[in-house]
């Protein structure tokens, strides 16, 4: 883990040296994984590193109890596909990290992995799904005869139809494909798509219901405490495994957008985190991903709770 201190490629970036290291979504990101051989002489002097020293010592005491923690924590998001090799030592060596996502700042007791569930369940706000009706459609006929339909071919090449129950909007294309948005649950999305298909069928087209698929799910919730976004972005600025997109897991530009954008790798979810404590999660294909992502981020957020 000599590389620990040599994070050359990433040096210039905001995080303090060594902050790159992966592993725990805690703020002492500097802990390399299995490097636990020695408390690395951390060359930087910022407070985080001192904290690390503390933690390292704690953890070394506790390390014996950490059996296979890294593996065990199904919950911890592999937030950092750390650019460095530190991860390789992961299995085996004294797992320095009590994989507990909890108790970031404090010297840790190796908590059990799934220890505190947050008790908060994100609510699904929007589901986007697509389905193929399996036949070509004449949009003008549909727009003229169906209720609650808009068709402005100069502006957009689809009929926009809405129904009241479940309250949803559908975009119907001449190829026969349809996008259904606005439902609050998977079942409602499917039901709504079926209703639209029935409307089209009643107008005389041989509509079928092929390949229904949920493409995106959006959820939101409130952690009920304010969050220090600046701190969070400082310690979580790491290269993600998709550097061509965004070199960071989290990005926070308050002048552009008041929320912090956190791109979790596993599950692949984007979270918008706001100072008020409200969190928006999006990008999921199944409901479990939203829940999992929230359980992953909750401990981190607790660590960055604003105390003033």
């Amino acid at each position, binding site marked *: 883990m000599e590389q620990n201190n040599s994070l050359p490629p990433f040096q210039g970036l905001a995080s303090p040296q060594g902050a790159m290291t992966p592993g725990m979504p805690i703020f002492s990101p500097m802990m390399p994984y299995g490097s636990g051989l020695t408390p690395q002489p951390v060359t930087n002097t910022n407070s985080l590193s001192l904290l690390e020293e503390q933690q390292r010592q704690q953890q070394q005491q506790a390390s014996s109890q950490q059996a296979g923690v890294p593996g065990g924590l199904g919950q911890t998001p592999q937030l950092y596909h750390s650019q460095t090799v530190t991860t390789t030592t992961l299995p085996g060596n004294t797992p320095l990290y009590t994989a507990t996502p909890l108790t970031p700042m404090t010297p840790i007791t190796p908590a059990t992995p799934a220890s505190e569930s947050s008790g908060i369940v994100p609510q699904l706000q929007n589901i986007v799904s697509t389905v193929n009706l399996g036949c070509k459609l004449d949009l003008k006929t549909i727009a003229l005869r169906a209720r609650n339909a808009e*068709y402005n071919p100069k502006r957009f090449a689809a009929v926009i139809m809405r129904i009241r129950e479940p309250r949803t909007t559908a975009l119907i294309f001449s190829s026969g494909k349809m996008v259904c948005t606005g439902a609050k649950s998977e079942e409602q999305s499917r039901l709504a798509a079926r209703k639209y298909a029935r409307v089209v069928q009643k107008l005389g087209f041989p509509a079928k219901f092929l390949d229904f698929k949920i493409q995106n799910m959006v959820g939101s919730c409130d952690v009920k405490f304010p969050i220090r976004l600046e701190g969070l972005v400082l310690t979580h600025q790491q290269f993600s495994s998709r550097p061509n997109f965004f070199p960071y897991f989290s990005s926070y530009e308050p002048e552009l957008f008041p929320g912090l954008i956190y791109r979790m790798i596993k599950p692949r979810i984007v979270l918008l985190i706001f100072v008020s404590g409200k969190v928006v999660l999006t990008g999921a294909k199944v409901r479990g991903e939203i829940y999992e992502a929230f359980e992953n981020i909750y401990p981190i957020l607790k660590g960055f709770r604003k105390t003033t």
Partner: protein
Amino acid sequence: MAYQLYRNTTLGNSLQESLDELIQTQQITPQLALQVLLQFDKAINTALANRVRNRVNFKGSLNTYRFCDNVWTFVLNDVEFREVTDLVKVDKVKIVLPHSSTTE
């Protein structure tokens, strides 16, 4: 070309009936009647656009809407038409709006 929308109004219908009578009694040709109606279209459109100033508010619940060929059609239920002086209540109203602008 102006919308022929206004031919089916009280005013437009009266005009059409009068023209039909005149055609029946051979006082004008059908071609002339057609020209009269076209002129009526232009005149009513410009008059409504330029010479009408009063304003009516209305409020109701939307039953259906449709937008096709740049024409909006709404069907409202339980509508109240309110002018400064008057109030008219109606169960069902169909509103047809030709909309020529392409910028929404």
